[in-house]
């Protein structure tokens, strides 16, 4: 019996289907769903990883579980009211979120806060950096299986939070920065307390340096894991300690013109050439210690004088566009503020650091092993509010 063309084609098609099936069986890919509520994600970030054995073939990041639409909401707020909202972007260092927005508004209004206000701003900026990063350097340990550091972190962060609370009234959300100055002066006895707390934080940094950095397991799990070359990191928009750990000597506190008091202080930008998870941890630890030294200098050199410039009671911001950015604990945070002469911003683009820091993960997770996903995620250090805004 002769074989018809139809039969021949269907035979070839079935052979091709079998071959395809065999190929798929051999690779044995599986999907691992990490999150949305994994402790390593500091909130609700979901990672869908395609695994080939123990190796990640492709990782997709799903965010938006906490999207609050701040860019839209700023458009129906007045300028002084926006600070209440943007406190909640990076909730571990809320004060640092307020500063660049206020600077952008001041730039448009062409007013400048008096020196004492700038110094107190810098002081709280660095205190919120310490409050933020102390948690990271403890938390990174717990991600890798060392439970102790995180208890130390919460213990010592409390000193800083108490200081922020006693001066501003807000423990997590100070809402302390104002256009043209700050809300209040420092309370009595605060400076001595702060110096004491800074001494404790330095002790905490020493403690963790001994506890984790010399630890064989910690080094084995972080050295050479998640290496980011400097040029790749920059083209993905990585900033802050993440890019300084790749050897880029760039810190906006030093390199960008700013009315804040950083240029009056004697301090150092820490970098590390390796670009791996260990380098990111190391840079942040040094930065915390450097920040405590900066706080000490700020307390010693605090100028006297008014804390508020002359500002009209109803703040109308002249039409124009302004971009202000600062080196926040997580990286570069900036606000692109467009005003059309109204009470509120016409458009406010919030450039938050974590959004860009995390956007590299699909590239970075390619080819790593499953346990390293956690190491890399926690070493990139993001706050979900800072991704989703």
């Amino acid at each position: 019996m002769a074989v018809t063309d139809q039969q021949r084609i269907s035979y070839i098609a079935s052979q091709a289907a079998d071959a395809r099936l065999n190929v798929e069986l051999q690779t044995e890919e599986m999907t691992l769903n990490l999150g949305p509520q994994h402790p390593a994600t500091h909130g609700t970030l979901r990672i869908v990883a395609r695994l080939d054995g123990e190796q990640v073939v492709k990782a997709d990041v799903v965010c938006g579980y906490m999207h609050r639409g701040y860019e839209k909401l700023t458009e129906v707020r007045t300028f002084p009211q926006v600070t209440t909202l943007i406190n909640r972007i990076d909730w571990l260092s809320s004060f640092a979120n307020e500063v660049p927005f206020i600077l952008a508004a001041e730039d448009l209004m062409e007013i400048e806060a008096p020196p004492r206000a700038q110094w107190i701003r810098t002081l709280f900026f660095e205190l919120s950096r310490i409050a933020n990063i102390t948690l990271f350097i403890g938390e990174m340990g717990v991600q890798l299986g060392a439970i102790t550091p995180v208890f130390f972190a919460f213990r010592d962060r409390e000193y800083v939070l108490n200081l922020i609370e006693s001066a501003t009234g807000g423990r997590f959300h100070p809402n302390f920065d104002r256009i043209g100055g700050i809300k209040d002066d420092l309370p009595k006895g605060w400076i001595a307390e702060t110096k004491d707390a800074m001494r404790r934080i330095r002790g905490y940094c020493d403690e963790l340096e001994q506890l984790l950095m010399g630890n064989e397991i910690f080094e084995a799990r972080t050295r050479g894991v998640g290496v980011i070359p400097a040029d790749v990191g920059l083209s993905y928009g990585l900033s802050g300690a993440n890019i300084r750990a790749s050897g880029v000597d760039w810190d906006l506190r030093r390199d960008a013109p700013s009315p804040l008091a950083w240029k009056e202080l004697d301090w150092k930008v820490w970098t590390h050439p390796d670009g791996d998870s260990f380098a990111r941890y190391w840079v942040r630890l040094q930065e915390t210690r450097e920040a405590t030294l900066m706080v000490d200098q700020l307390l010693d050199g605090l100028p006297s004088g008014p804390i508020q410039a002359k500002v009209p009671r109803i703040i109308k911001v002249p039409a124009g566009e302004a971009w202000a950015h600062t080196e926040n604990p997580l990286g570069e945070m900036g606000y692109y503020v467009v005003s059309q002469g109204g009470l509120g911003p016409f458009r406010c683009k919030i450039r938050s650091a974590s959004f860009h820091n995390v956007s590299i993960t699909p590239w970075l997770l390619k080819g790593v092993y499953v346990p390293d996903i956690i190491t890399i995620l926690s070493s990139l250090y993001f706050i979900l509010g800072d991704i989703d805004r």
Partner: protein
Amino acid sequence: MSSADSTTATDDRQKALLEDLTTRLGAAVVGSHIRSGDLWVRVRPDAWLRAAEACKAMGFDYFCYLSGIDWMPHTWPNPKVIEGPAPDPDDEAALPAEEVVEEPVIEGIQSGYAGGDTRFQVLARLYSTIRHIGVTLKADLDDLNPRIESWITAYPGADWCERETWEMYGFDFTGHPNLTHLYLPGEFEGFPMRKDFPLLAREVKPWPGLVDVEQFPATYKGDGEG
């Protein structure tokens, strides 16, 4: 803070940068603005990707952000109330929210720095970590069919930014391999960051903060006096 000398010195750097960019892009540069040590450049939309590549060649290694802007005036009563007299908080009819119920017409567009001819603009900022100088690039987009080239080939960090701008503004980025929702659920309809997308909370209830701002000076006479 900074003296007049240093301000002009920074502006000189921006001018030199603008000149360099103009020689590289030619007639594609259609507008520019320099203010307080910052540079805005508006390029023709067909040269959007070319501008990114030129900037990359000029040493702008750091991708800061990419986003959009809708220049249509507000539909809620935010900037309009300022001009009128302070509303009486007891008189409901005088509240501003009642007056401003007009159809969204695209009139009175007040463009920003470096100009603009259309309602939508895409904007992006690049920075050089070596020269410590930044530039904000803008391009006009078509009102009905906003479409522009993707920057992914020049700066991979544009990936998420373009996805966000796509879902928030409805801009189409040609050449983007995976233009899917980043924040919003997949079945979401509309483009929330457009000015004609209603913020329902504000439609239902007028903005309370605005009334407070106007009412405050008239009624508050200071502690112990009033």
